[in-house]
């Protein structure tokens, strides 16, 4: 008889692994892409020192070649370097917004269960009101406020987008956490811990929240895909990440303006944006059915 392995098997879903490999590739591209392109191209650049993301390197609208795998854009800049820098922007925004969403969402969700009744219901009504409202509309309004007031938000060029998406990101997590915590708090192991004198804080942080880590990780992946899409949408509309910063959304918008003559310009940013969203959704769905086999994809 074969010995039964004690170790839990890892997820088998091939789509999950495809997604994970693509995301690792994207992270490396984002981290090292622009610098590597600088090293490769600085010998043929008329700009010294050469920054691959902002400086022109050749004639505009070069098509694919060995030197420029994605060609050059309307200002003669290297498309590959800008795609890599766009990945950097998308991942940064996605990650920071998701951290905000998790911190606020988990706090609000736990408060919704354990806080005094009037605080809990006030907080959850606010969550419901925000959840019932299209995120992108609220984000557009927040960007509108920031742009109209020309306020200098600390934190650089990405700050307005991160602020707008951060404010709208947490309600779905708060609702999930609240529902889960409400059922978990009456489970035997929590009640037992309470009986032995564990405080509510200890119970929540040591017993309840660790139970949720897996499913929150899965949801976070899907939410990051949504955030990256929202950031691209805002940048596409011209109110997100501002030029000369290269967001995939604004690259698609630029390429669209020259679509009549150079349709191939659209391929790279569209492909990278779609693949990233696919990959994150695959990873999220795969992780969710791994951590929570009962649930099916939504």
């Amino acid at each position: 008889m074969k010995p039964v392995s004690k170790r839990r098997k890892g997820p088998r879903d091939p789509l999950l692994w495809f997604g994970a490999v693509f995301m690792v590739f994207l992270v490396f591209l984002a981290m090292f892409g622009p610098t590597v392109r600088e090293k490769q191209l600085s010998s043929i650049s008329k700009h010294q020192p050469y920054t691959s993301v902002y400086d022109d390197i050749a004639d505009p609208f070069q098509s694919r070649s060995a030197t420029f795998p994605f060609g050059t854009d309307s200002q003669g800049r290297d498309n590959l370097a800008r795609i890599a820098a766009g990945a950097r922007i998308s991942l940064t925004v996605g990650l920071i917004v998701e951290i905000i969403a998790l911190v606020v969402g988990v706090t609000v969700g736990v408060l919704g269960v354990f806080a005094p009744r009037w605080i809990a219901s006030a907080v959850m009504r606010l969550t419901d009101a925000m959840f019932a409202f299209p995120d992108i509309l609220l984000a557009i309004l927040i960007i509108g406020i920031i742009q109209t007031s020309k306020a200098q938000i600390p934190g650089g060029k990405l700050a307005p987008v991160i602020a707008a998406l951060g404010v709208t990101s947490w309600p779905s997590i708060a609702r999930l956490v609240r529902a889960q915590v409400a059922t978990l708090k009456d489970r035997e192991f929590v009640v037992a811990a309470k009986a032995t004198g564990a405080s509510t804080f200890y119970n929540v942080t040591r017993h309840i929240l660790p139970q949720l880590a897996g499913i929150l990780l899965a949801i976070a992946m899907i939410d990051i895909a949504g955030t990256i899409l929202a950031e691209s949408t805002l940048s596409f509309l011209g109110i997100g990440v501002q030029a000369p910063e290269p967001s995939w959304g604004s690259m698609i918008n630029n390429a669209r303006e020259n679509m009549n003559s150079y349709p191939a310009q659209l391929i790279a940013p569209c492909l990278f944006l779609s693949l990233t969203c696919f990959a994150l959704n695959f990873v999220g769905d795969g992780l969710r059915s791994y951590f929570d086999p009962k649930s099916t994809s939504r």
Partner: protein
Amino acid sequence: MLNSASVRLAKPILLRLTFGVLSLFFISLVTFFAAALTPGDAATAIAGDKATPETVARIRHEMGLDRPWPIRYVKFVVDAGHGDFGKSYFGTREDVGSVVRRTLPLTVKTATLAIIIASFVGILLGTLAAVYQHRVADRSVLVFSTLGVTIPNFVLAPLLVYVFSMRLGWLPLIWTTDMTASEFYYLVLPVLLLASRPMALITRLTRAMMIDTFQQEFIRTATAKGVPRGRLIFRHALRNAILPVITTIGTSFGFLLTGSFVIERYFVMPGLGSTTIEAIQKGDMPVIQAGILITGAMFIMLNLLVDILLPILDPRIRESQI
């Protein structure tokens, strides 16, 4: 006359109405404070660049802009209810109400056409996939609906424009004011693009609900009694499976109105969405307020309508809510 049935109907509807009013209150408060948080108001816009602070203060007093914010908020809501959003800060200082009247019909028309197409095609494809579960038809419908949910509009748009406008030359590239063909040709691509995502969502949900319904006993009974297949699918199964789909149609329609921001911008259509985005780039707060408030209010009202419609359509929901 109040009988028990109407009381049972009234309670959930009242609850939903309260929640809808609260949501409207929330969105109006947010848009009101959007203007309060930003420098510059109607008074500075009227006074012009060269005005002294005293002139601005006088105009502000005449317009009641120096009164406490609760009073200004009530005035803002009452005016908005009458379709009065003030005047644009820029250009000819057009009345924002007339901007809305000029741009809103196109947005609503596009969204309505899109949701009608999405509902019909989505329910049909979803039913088809459920009937032929696990076969080629089902698989391909699933793949396409997954793509439809994940691919963003502004990635799909250039693809369709490239194929249908540039290669085949069947449809115009963008919206123009001097239309050479009938408006229908100009609307095809925007409507299809807007419809793609709700169509995918409706397809997936219809498929899931139909598969669920097919396993229930009344379907087996009906099959045993010899009910014809078409009648079984559309009269027996679909009528039971359709209610969650109606909810999705309602929420999708709301999201379509906001999705029009992207599509209108892509095709340079003179709708409310593209107007709002332009206003953000200029910093034209009254137009931004009107755009957000109207789109948001329509979204809330539509969801409210669906929520109220459901317990009327389905007695099971009525029972469960008491």
